């Protein structure tokens, strides 16, 4: 008897929040349209200096040309692989060093001041040094991403390993795990939330580092394109590159969000 009624009951309350969410989404999109139209009108009528701001349709044109000519793909690839190698190396090295510092307390205490100094230092200060040593090229770009990303990873792993609850270590020891196994079965999983938070920070920070690095020392790549088009006052192209860079960063941040949620699904 009550069976046919249930879907209706279940469907009703859920309809309201999704309706209001759709409403908010619509207002957001409408606001975007208003801003774009106002910008377009102001730009075309020279109400704002086109050198500085250009206008949406001009930017869109350039963005489209880059997409179909393959210029976007080529530069995305150049930036992408240096970024990826730098971030992966930093995550691996930083996690191992940080976990080791947390697990072997004496080692951690010895290394700690160096890590603190290195992380306090504005690492962009090392760009000229790296460029001087390694020249303009992949090695410099990868190393710049690496030094930018590695410190938050080290710190997170260090804190993560240090905070491993003694109770869990005791429990594992009682049930016969030796000190070598303890690292794998307790310390690593207990530090995982911290490691993931570190990777999340690293993913965003790495994007900033590679773009800034390419401003100074690269012959192609997203950052280099932004710098060159700005110097040549190719304003619409510059904004198109900024737009693509932002989209890539957005995808990375959202990806990191999903990764974090997936990896932490037991909490």
């Amino acid at each position: 008897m009550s069976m046919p009624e249930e879907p209706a009951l279940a469907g009703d309350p859920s309809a309201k929040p999704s309706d209001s969410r759709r409403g908010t989404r619509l207002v957001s999109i409408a606001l975007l349209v208003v801003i774009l139209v106002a910008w377009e009108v102001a730009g075309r009528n020279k109400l704002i200096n086109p050198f500085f701001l250009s206008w949406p349709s001009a930017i869109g044109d350039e963005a489209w040309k880059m997409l179909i000519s393959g210029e976007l793909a080529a530069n995305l690839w150049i930036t992408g692989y240096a970024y990826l190698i730098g971030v992966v190396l930093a995550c691996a090295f930083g996690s191992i060093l940080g976990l080791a510092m947390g697990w072997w307390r004496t080692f951690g205490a010895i290394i700690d001041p160096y890590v603190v100094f290195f992380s306090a230092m504005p690492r962009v200060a090392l760009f000229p040094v790296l460029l001087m040593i390694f020249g303009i090229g992949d090695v410099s770009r990868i190393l710049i991403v690496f030094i930018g990303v590695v410190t938050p990873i080290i710190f997170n792993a260090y804190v993560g390993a240090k905070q491993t609850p003694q109770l869990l270590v005791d429990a594992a020891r009682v049930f016969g795990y030796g000190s070598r196994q303890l690292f794998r079965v307790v310390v690593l999983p207990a530090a995982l939330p911290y490691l993931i938070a570190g990777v999340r920070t690293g993913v965003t920070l790495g994007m900033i580092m590679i773009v800034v690095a390419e401003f100074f020392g690269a012959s192609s790549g997203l950052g280099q394109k932004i710098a060159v088009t700005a110097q040549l006052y190719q304003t619409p192209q510059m904004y198109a590159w900024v737009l693509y860079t932002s989209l890539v960063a957005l995808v990375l941040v959202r990806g990191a969000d999903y990764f974090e949620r997936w990896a932490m699904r037991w909490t």
Partner: protein
Amino acid sequence: MDGLDVESICKSFRTSHGTLPVIDRISFSQSQGEVVCIVGASGSGKTTLLRILAGLEKPDSGSLRLAGHPVEGPGPERAMIFQQFGLMPWLTVLENVLFGLAPGGLSEEEKLARARDAIERVHLGGFENYHPKALSGGMQQRVGIARALAVRPRLLLCDEPFAAVDAITRQLMQTDLLNIVTQQKSTVLLVTHDIEEALFLGDRVLVFSSRPARLLRDVKVDIPKPRSHEVRVTPEFQAMRGMVWDILQANQ
């Protein structure tokens, strides 16, 4: 000797204010299948004694023998139930129970069979794939109990196992634990500050002084098993309770 022999164990901790003696020449023995409860004030060194027996700490002097073999470090013939459960939050109920069996040399099928059997014994069938966070405190401790039971230890060490669960759950779980250990004829050493719990569960109750812990009295609990919780209101039970209370008070 099949059981546990504890002989004049001493332990002190070094602090910034000098050495702090926590255990002072504790000796007792316990036969196979016997349930012994240690009762004493909080911070009296009871837990330290249990940690020594588990192999987590070393005594300053004295000797420990289980079934004739000296106890040095943790071993699979002993298992422990922790006050704050000590479950791995990233593992499911089943994985947590298997966790206790992992270092042993059992086959995968044997581990799984033992884990499932232990989970059934603590009435957690159907919750195998839950993570600890999704369970109540009482259920989490049932996982802790299942993990210890699955090992089939010669000696089961319990450190205030019900101190972190609510009063109603505590009574139910005490009865459950009593039934399980009676069925399995397990040797149990349980530390508590709850006199009633000690008398309800124990064949013997060891009354400890406050720090440093000394053995004040070894009380035999002459109540036949299985016990139901109505036993708590009997005059014999209340008399024993009063006696233990007096010993503890006289020591304060």
